[in-house]
């Protein structure tokens, strides 16, 4: 095959690789600062030193990944997926519990998180499955199978439990959308989001009811939803042509009942299933007063750190909020606080810009592929990056609830860095082969 003599270096998308490099270096600088180890960087025992080792390992890994023929990834995607599924099951049994989630394999002082590799494996299997016969999304059965491929690892991760990573798997909806999933699904998604916000806001309010006395305002909301929905449905039905009225009635009723069921389920879930501190986290996000002053401790300090950066920040390793431990988990999930505090608006907007650029670049790579496998895979990569970006930065600037999820290439952690290296390394190799492949 011509790929044997492929000059990877000549075909490599250096722009993406360079962006990754910049992000990793910036991330490392912030880890040094956040762990207040500016003086002891070269002592490999510290977190900054460990991260440096991981960076070296990942650089080697990247070279290795680029050297392997793309066809290997395609053919072994099932193997990867199966292996990851086994690891995810194993970790539930023999895993180490860190921060309430059983998600780590301990290897000496280093830990490995299989869920980081599950993302790559799922991206690969998805690409393989959707490009398998070149005719995806025709049958209900295929769609169900696709869903199962995503849901299986996500379900296992939910058992750990690691809500953040599960959320990332939700990002695969963009891949499916690109590959032909109806846009209505996205619309329904947005509708559910609106319903969810209203449910949470009104659910936390107090209201008075005849015979029942004072309790959650949610039930008024549900009643109004039913009345207004029915009224709207009747009006729309009256305005449509008689021959389409039956369809309108059927779909409208389904939507209305579905919405009400979703709303009720969410409300009951909030009240009955979630623990108090979890509910408070969500309430804090929506600006609802909570009795516990410590409930929004993390996010209050995170926002103070970022907001105190001003235009240009306080300078590298000079941010007292992050250096002196006011921000929790500041070298991992809250690493962006260090960026905001020490590099200011210019620095943090720059980092946001870098991530936007990276994601758009990956989308660009996706669209220039002739191979459907590579395109699907690239979309999966972009979706994963996008979800991490959305949830992590949204969380630290107070636009999303506190959900533990690392910022790609920035956050401290070997598994995370290695997972993203795998993800991008495979993509870059596949992209380098784009002219050589006719599949």
């Amino acid at each position, binding site marked *: 095959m011509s790929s044997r003599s492929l000059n990877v270096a000549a075909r490599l998308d250096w722009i993406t690789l360079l962006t990754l490099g910049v992000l990793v270096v910036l991330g490392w600088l912030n880890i040094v600062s956040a762990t207040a180890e500016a003086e002891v960087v070269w002592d490999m025992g510290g977190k900054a030193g460990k991260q440096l080792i991981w960076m070296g390992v990942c650089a080697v890994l990247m070279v290795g990944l680029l050297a392997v023929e793309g066809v290997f990834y395609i053919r072994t995607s099932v193997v990867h997926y199966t292996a990851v599924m086994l690891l995810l099951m194993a970790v539930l049994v023999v895993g180490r519990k860190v921060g309430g989630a059983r998600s780590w394999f301990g290897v000496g002082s280093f830990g490995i998180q299989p869920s980081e590799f599950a993302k790559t494996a799922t991206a690969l299997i998805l690409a393989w499955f959707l490009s398998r016969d070149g005719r995806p999304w025709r049958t209900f059965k295929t769609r169900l199978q696709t869903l199962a491929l995503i849901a299986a690892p996500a379900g296992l991760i939910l058992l750990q439990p690691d809500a953040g990573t599960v959320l990332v798997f939700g990002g695969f909806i963009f891949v499916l959308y690109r590959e032909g999933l109806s846009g209505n699904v996205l619309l329904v998604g947005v509708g559910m989001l609106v319903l969810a916000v209203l449910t949470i806001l009104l659910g936390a309010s107090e209201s008075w009811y005849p015979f029942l006395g004072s309790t959650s305002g949610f039930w008024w909301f549900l009643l109004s939803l039913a009345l207004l929905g029915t009224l709207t449905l009747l009006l729309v039905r009256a305005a449509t042509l008689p021959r389409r009225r039956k369809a309108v009635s059927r779909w409208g009723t389904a939507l209305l009942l579905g919405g009400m069921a979703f709303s009720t389920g969410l409300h009951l879930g909030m009240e009955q299933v979630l623990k108090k501190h979890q509910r408070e986290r969500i309430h804090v996000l929506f600006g609802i007063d909570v009795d516990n002053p410590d409930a929004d401790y993390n996010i209050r300090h995170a926002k103070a750190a970022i*907001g105190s950066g001003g*235009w240009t920040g306080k300078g590298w390793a000079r941010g007292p909020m992050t250096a002196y431990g006011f921000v929790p988990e500041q070298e991992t999930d809250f690493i962006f606080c260090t960026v905001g505090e020490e590099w200011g608006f210019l620095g943090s907007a720059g980092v946001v810009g870098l991530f936007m650029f990276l994601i758009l670049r990956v989308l660009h790579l996706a669209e220039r592929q002739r191979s459907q496998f590579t395109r699907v895979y690239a979309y999966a990569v972009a979706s994963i990056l996008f979800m991490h970006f959305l949830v992590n930065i949204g969380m630290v600037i107070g636009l999303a609830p506190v959900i533990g999820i690392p910022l790609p290439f920035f956050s401290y952690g070997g598994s995370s860095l290695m997972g993203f290296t795998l993800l991008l390394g495979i993509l870059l190799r596949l992209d380098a082969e784009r002219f050589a492949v006719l599949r």
Partner: protein
Amino acid sequence: MELNGDHLSGRQRIVGAMVLAVGLVFIIRLFQMQVTTDEYRNRAERLTEEQELLHPSRGLCLDRHGELLVNNVPGYELMVVPRAMAGVDTAALATLLSLETDNLVSRLNKARRYSRYKASPLLRQLNAEEYAALSAELWKYPGLSIRTKPVRENVFGIASQIVGEYREVDRQDMNDDGRYRLGDYKGKSGIEGLHELDLRGTPGIRHHLVDVRNNVRNTLTELDSMPVAGDDLTLTLDTELQRYAEALMRGKRGAVVALEPSTGEVLAFVSAPSFDGNLLTGTSRGAAYDSLAKHPWKPLYNRAIRGTYRPGSIFKMVQGLIGMQQGVISPRTHIVCNRDVIGWHGAHTQDDLRRAVVHSCNPYFYDVMRRMVNQHPDKDKFDNARLGLGWWTERVKDFGFGTDLGGHVPGTRSGLVPDTTYYNNIYGRRHWTFRTIYSISIGEGELLATPLHMANLAAIMANRGWYMEPHLIRDIGGKGKPEALHVRQDVDVDEVHFTAILDAMQDVIEDPSGTGRRALTPGIATCGKTGTVQNPGKPDHSVFMAFAPRENPQIALSVYVENAGAGGEWAAPIAGLLVEKYIRGNIDDKARESRVIGATYPLDPTFVDPASLAQIQAASGDPESQDAP
């Protein structure tokens, strides 16, 4: 091309647009948080920056010779970080601190409300012994630490009423002056209060960066400032004289005020019973304050400036001087001792002015007053009384009576010189005549003055017609005496008129028949006047005012001893001893001294108050002193 799903390639724009939208929202949000508002910056500064106040050392108080009166000595505060106190055995800690458990718990809760992470005081003003007892056990309680904070010490425990209190600020103080924070101290009364601004100095500030556990991690030295110590005050008091006066007044109620006539400086200032101001600092304050406040003799009441008494016979000199100045009498005017109009004492019939003063002849000064009031033969007795009293009031106020004497001694009351308005309010217009008001002619009736006014009168006599407004401050921070304390007030009486009065005052002490014989100090020409102030239902007050020596006077003073009988009995010997002490520096007449020091109530056998007697003897720590005269 169907294979590659290119008919769906438009969807990449929708996905791309979502990425852009999210990124844009993030950037706008970052701009809003970091650039448009200070809210987060302030919040971060509140969390990470701690300003440590460096307390300036408070100015000291010295006496007129530079002797230390009020000092700063090491004191300690027990600080607590509530977060580190979780799981501590409060009962054991309460025992260690000798507090009730409830008390300790409420103190801990107060500290917790202030901050869980930052240290706040649990116990204040511990002395060295209390600190030593605590420090051995302190390691058991990780949340506790000791901070040094100086306390005020009144070196000799004297002049406590005039030095005043230095204690913790209250909410009002913090509202009035933002500089005071919870737990700060300030001068609340007396010199400490009046000169708070001079004494307190300027605190320095040290800026720290602290970590989440409130450990200091770094300093921001460029913002720091050093504390500037407060100004030292040099008081006008003479420590030796003050101590001696307090010793003489022990076991008695009353007041002593001694002035330097040429300057108006207060040399000694006693309100008896006095107390040791050090009792009102530190952990003992509550109990000590309670016992002082409840004491039947009211030691917290500053009689020297708050006690308004009838001046009594010493006022006759004022009458004589005004009368001479007005020309209604001369030193050679003899007036029949008409014993029908007013009470009298002594054996005399028709004295001149000098003898009338020596004999304290009431009818004489009754008549002087009548002559001064009824100066308008063409008017009726009501108009005469009104016009005459109006004129007389102004003359008397020249002597400082009825004024606050410049108000330099904090808390001075004006006393009362009744004027026409006063009597109009009581009796109604044209319903009073000289016969209504005559008792003021001999310093009785409605006249009220403080011992400070009486000492000031002695200074006027010493100076022959003027006084400097009395004050307590000689120097503030080496800058000299404030201009406002150099105020001379002239009395509208010519110097020539003083000779007869001063002759009489010297006779009071030196004449074998003088009422003030007990004030006699051989070799020191002392001028004085006794007063025996009527006190219906109770023994008379014993009053004496004096200055010495007659030429070039160095000390003018008044002594007021409540319910002690005749002025010559107790007030005169106390005045004499103080003159001897101040001018000679030592006491030759030991008999006179031991008679006074040994004396305690009942000075007059008819006035016995056994309950307060027992308490006073216990309080004054002077059990031997019971031999009443």
